Structures are given as C-alpha cells and as structure tokens.
C-alpha cells in the first residue's frame, strides 16, 4: 500500500512539474516577444488576477475529486457578493469583516442545497448544478431587485485588501488565496476526512464497504464548494468595488473548471492535487494577462485563450498516459 501511494505521489508530482514547465516555457516565449512581460509588474498583475479563481478552484477541485462537478459557482459568487453588498448598503455601520461572514455562510447554505439535491434525489451533479446555476442567479435578481450595489457602499477597508496589506504590502486577497490553498492541502492530505473524499471519488461503490459515510462527506464537499464561492464573492466586492447582479460571477465557473482540470484533476474523480490546481490557476492567469500585454488583437484573444487550455490538456494527457503505463496497473481498488 505504501509503495503504491508512493508511486501515485511521484506521478502527481511529475504532473505538477509538467504544468510548471509549461508555465515557464510560456512565460519565456512571451518574454522573448515582449521583454516587458518578464518584470515584477507582470507578477503583480497576475497575482491580482488569480485570487478569486484560486479560492473557488480549491472548492471545485474537491468536488471533482469526489466525482462530482459544481457548475453553479458563478451564480453562488454573484449571490453571496450581492447579499454581502446589500448588508453593507442597508446597514452602513457594519464593519468590513461582517461581509466575510455573511458571504461565506450564505455560500455554504447554497452549496449545502446543491449537495442535498444531489444526495437525496441521487441526481447527477452536472444536471443539478446546471439547474441551480440559473436558480441562484434568478433568486439573486429577485432579492436585489436587479439593482447593483454601488461603489460608495463598499467599505474602503475591504477595497484596500485588494491593494495592500501589512505583510510586505502584498494585497490581502493574494494572501487569502494562498492561505486557502495551504489549508486545503492540510485538509486533503493530512486528515482522514480529506482522504475519504479521494476514496469516494476513486470508487463510489467500494467506499461504503470501507466504512466511509458517502452522503455526509458529499454534503461537506458541496458545502465547502459553496463556502469558498462565497469567499470569492466577498473578494469580488473587494477587488472590483461594486456588485452587479447581471455581471458579477457570470461565466466564472468555466474559468475555474478549466484551471482545475489544467491543474491535473480528473473529471472522472479520485485525482487532483492542491499544488497542481495552484499551478493550473497561475498558468491560466498568466495567459490571460500575457495576451493583452502582447497586444494580441481582441478578436484573437478568446480563440488563443481557448487553444492554450486545449493544448495544456493534451500535453497533460500524454504525460498521464505515459505515467499510467509505467505504474502498477492495479493501483485503483
């Protein structure tokens, strides 16, 4: 058993290394074309572009590992951001940190709702969360009366978290993103509960036989996904300074899923690492910043961005197949 996990660990590390190499090559190529790309300024721009995606990606990765998917993240982000924004607007004396509590707990409730529908009715999560993607967005229009929360209502302390912090001036949302990634690593790799998520995803039929209570663990995973979407929601209010019901979070889930899958998580469950996901998010963020710096025409940007995702997945897949052949065939129970 130890030997097998050791081999899998080596394989996963190699996959993360593959993404890191891709990231390096991409940055060097872009740097050759536009030397200005290889400056600390670019690093700052990339680091500011990724925190929301990274936080949500940790939730999405856990969902994918458990052999589910959460398509409702963008609407959960929008929902939680608007609820937090409305609290700031309607109760102007509320301190900034209350927004975090409101957004995270609202997100947890939405995520739990996803989990309950998936587990009680035994429905595929792709269908359930596709439904709640629209449902949550619709309800958010209703509760917000389709009105945006204007910048004047967002506390300046919250806005400043996207600009600086007492820790070497690194923006607070960047620290939060990497902090969440580290906590996710501790949870997944160093707790029994975390390992159980992998077990459920690797073989849902065998998991109960090994004494794993599938339903509560699945509920936890969806709740965490919602809570982290909520954290991304309050970070959105911090980063962009306003919340708009029809703009905030729209299409967000696709960016997140792309980053997680580039990071090596399998949509077939059981596979995914924090390191890989972090690198996937950084790779995606780097590409999205590189295209405008290269002055790529707006008509081409979407196409190139999509092509980079496909290429990253192809490279990853060929690495994985080579890896799988060299590994003991029976590592899956």
């Amino acid at each position, binding site marked *: 058993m130890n030997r097998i996990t050791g081999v899998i660990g080596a394989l996963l590390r190699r996959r993360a290394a593959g993404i890191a190499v891709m990231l390096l090559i991409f940055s060097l190529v872009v740097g050759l074309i*536009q030397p*200005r790309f290889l*400056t600390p*300024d*670019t690093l700052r*721009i990339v680091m*500011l*572009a990724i925190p929301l995606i990274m936080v949500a990606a940790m939730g999405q990765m856990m969902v994918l590992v458990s052999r589910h998917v959460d398509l409702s993240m963008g609407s959960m982000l929008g929902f939680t951001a608007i609820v937090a924004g409305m609290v700031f607007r309607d109760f102007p004396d509320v301190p900034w940190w209350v927004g975090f509590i409101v957004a995270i707990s609202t997100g947890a409730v939405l995520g739990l709702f996803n989990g309950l529908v998936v587990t009680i009715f035994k429905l595929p999560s792709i269908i359930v969360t596709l439904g709640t993607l629209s449902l949550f*967005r619709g309800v958010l*229009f209703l509760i*917000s009366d*389709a*009105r*945006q929360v*204007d*910048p*004047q209502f967002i506390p300046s302390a919250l806005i400043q978290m*996207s*600009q600086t912090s007492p820790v070497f001036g690194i923006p607070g949302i960047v620290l939060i993103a990497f902090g969440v990634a580290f906590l996710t690593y501790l949870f997944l790799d160093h707790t029994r509960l975390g390992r159980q998520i992998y077990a459920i995803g690797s073989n849902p039929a065998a998991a109960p036989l090994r004494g794993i209570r599938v339903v509560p663990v699945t509920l936890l995973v969806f709740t965490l996904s919602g809570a982290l979407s909520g954290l991304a929601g309050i970070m959105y209010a911090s*980063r*962009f*300074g*306003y919340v*708009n*019901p*029809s*703009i*905030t979070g*729209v*299409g967000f889930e696709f960016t997140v899923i792309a980053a997680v899958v580039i990071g090596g998580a399998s949509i077939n469950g059981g596979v995914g690492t924090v390191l890989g996901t972090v690198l996937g998010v950084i790779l995606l963020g780097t590409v*999205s*910043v590189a295209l*405008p*710096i290269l*002055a790529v025409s*707006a*008509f081409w940007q979407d196409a190139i961005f999509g092509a980079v995702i496909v290429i990253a997945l192809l490279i990853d897949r060929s690495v994985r197949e080579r890896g799988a052949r060299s590994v003991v065939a029976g590592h899956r129970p």
Partner: protein
Amino acid sequence: MFRKSLVFGLALGVSMASGAAAFAQESLSIVFVGKNTGNPYFDSLVQGFEDACDVLGCEFEFVAPATAEATSQIPFITAQIQRRVDVIAISPNSPDALNQVLDRARQRGILVLSVNGDITGSEEFRDAAILPTDFEKVGSDQVEMLGSLINYEGEIAILSATTEAPDQNKWIVGMNEALENNPKYAKMTLVATVYGDDQPEKSTTEAEALLSTYPNLRGIISPTTVGIAASAQVVQSANKADQVKVTGLGTPNQMRPFIKDGTVEAFQLWSPYNEGWLASYFAVGLKAGTIVNEVGATFEVPNLGTITINELNSINTQAGLTTFNADNIDDFNF
C-alpha cells in the same frame, strides 16, 4: 359582482384623477425592452418613462433579458407583440439581429422606438430613434475632455466594451477622426484601443496591461461604464492618478468615490432620465396625432423645450454631453 364594480370604480377613479391628457390616451401601453437587467444606467431611464407616464396616463412596463447578447431581446419583443402593446421602445443589443422581429411588430401597428442606441444601418426597421445626444460628436467631445486634462500632449489609449458594440465603435471612429484631423490634438498619440468586453475582470486586466505596456501613458478614455470604473480602480490601486488621467462615459453613482478621492477629475454622460421622459411624450403625441414623425418637424416637451426630429428620424434629448466633476456630482443620483 361586487369585485367587478370595485374594479370599475377603481378604474374610473384612476382615470379621473389622472386628468384630461389621460382620458384621451388612457389605454396606450408602452413597453421598454432594456439591454439587460441590473444595469444601473437603465434605472434612471426607466424612471423617466414612469414619471412621464404618470403625467400622461400611459401604462408603462420595463422588461429586459438577463444578458446583453445580440439575440437575447428577441423573445421579449415577440412576447410584447403577442400582448398587442401600442409602443415598443428598445435599447438594441445588435444593429441588425432584431430586424425581422421589429418588422413583425411594426406590421401589427406597433410603434417601434430605438432608445439610447440606434440600429445603425437598419434604420428602416424602427419608426424613430431617441438618442441622448448627437452620437457623431461624442468621440470628439471625449478627446477634448481628455486633452484638457493632459494639456493636449502625450500617449493615450482607449478601453472599450466589446469589439462589436455599435455605439462604442461609432464613438471610437469619432475619436480617431478628431485625433487625426484636428491640429489641436497633434501632440496626442493613440497607442492602443483595447476591449474589456464590459466584464470587470477582463476590463481590469486590460487596464493593468495598458499601464504596464505603455509606461509613458498619460490618459485612458473608456466610453463604457464598466470600463471607466475598472480603469479608475486600476489607476487608483497603482497610485498613478497624477500620471494617468482616466475619463470616459460613466454614471455618477458608479464613479462617485473616484471623483471624491481625486482619482478621476471629470467624466461625461448625458441624462438617461430625459430619454425616457422624451420617449413617453413622443410616443403619446404621435399616437394622439399631435406630433408628426417627419424629419425637420418639431414638438414641445415639458422641461426639455423644443425638440427637432433630425435626419433618419433620430431625436436628441440634449445637444452636448454633460460633464461630471467634484463640483456637480452630488446633484446626480443614477
């Protein structure tokens, strides 16, 4: 029976209360199809419609799709045709995707007004366009605004909405013409025109990239509410408000904090409220026969004075753009 008479009594009371103008037009129903829901800009426009209909006694309803896509308005227009409303006012999301459905509406005798934006090149598919100001002049007005902030000298960039946004593209053409043809702007160089797709994320990244790629950048014109807010936020975060001047088209509520802290000195827009106000008066007058929809014809609108119908049956609510700055921003709430 009781309920029926109650409704009748209510209807009588309402029509009596709303006066003589209402009596002639009490059944006129106006629907405004917005670009998308949750767009604060349209709240003010809708308010103008509502206030005018309160005075005139028309029925008003606002509907809009969730997203501002080219075809997302079609089902909303179809539904209004089936409801047999009298007037469809629409802020079109596309210059040509709506042609067929608008044609069908007009065949059923529905008055079609393009409000706040025109279907340029497809003007025959609407009866008239109510535009906030002369869109031909917006581009040059914006260049003049930025020029005045940077002493008419230095590198400038444009951060727009989507590549196919019809109004923005028209204004960008105007900006380019002004920069090329007017010697006053000879020392201003347009180094880049980029598109943030009206998404805060992409607009922010594009604005960051502009600052990084053009270290000598002196100004950004962003003729879209999402873009100007993102540009202002980026310049504020980078502490470059003194070096890079951000201006463009924005709403006072969205830009208020940036004006207050000095990140943005001035920006422009018009009054969306007046568009709704004018559109209601125009529609009611046209249906009542007191206004003739002919180029060159004029009519009176309370608070706005004499309005002229221009080429292609387009009508402007105001002659030039309104400039918002620290002195006047608190007079506006939209």
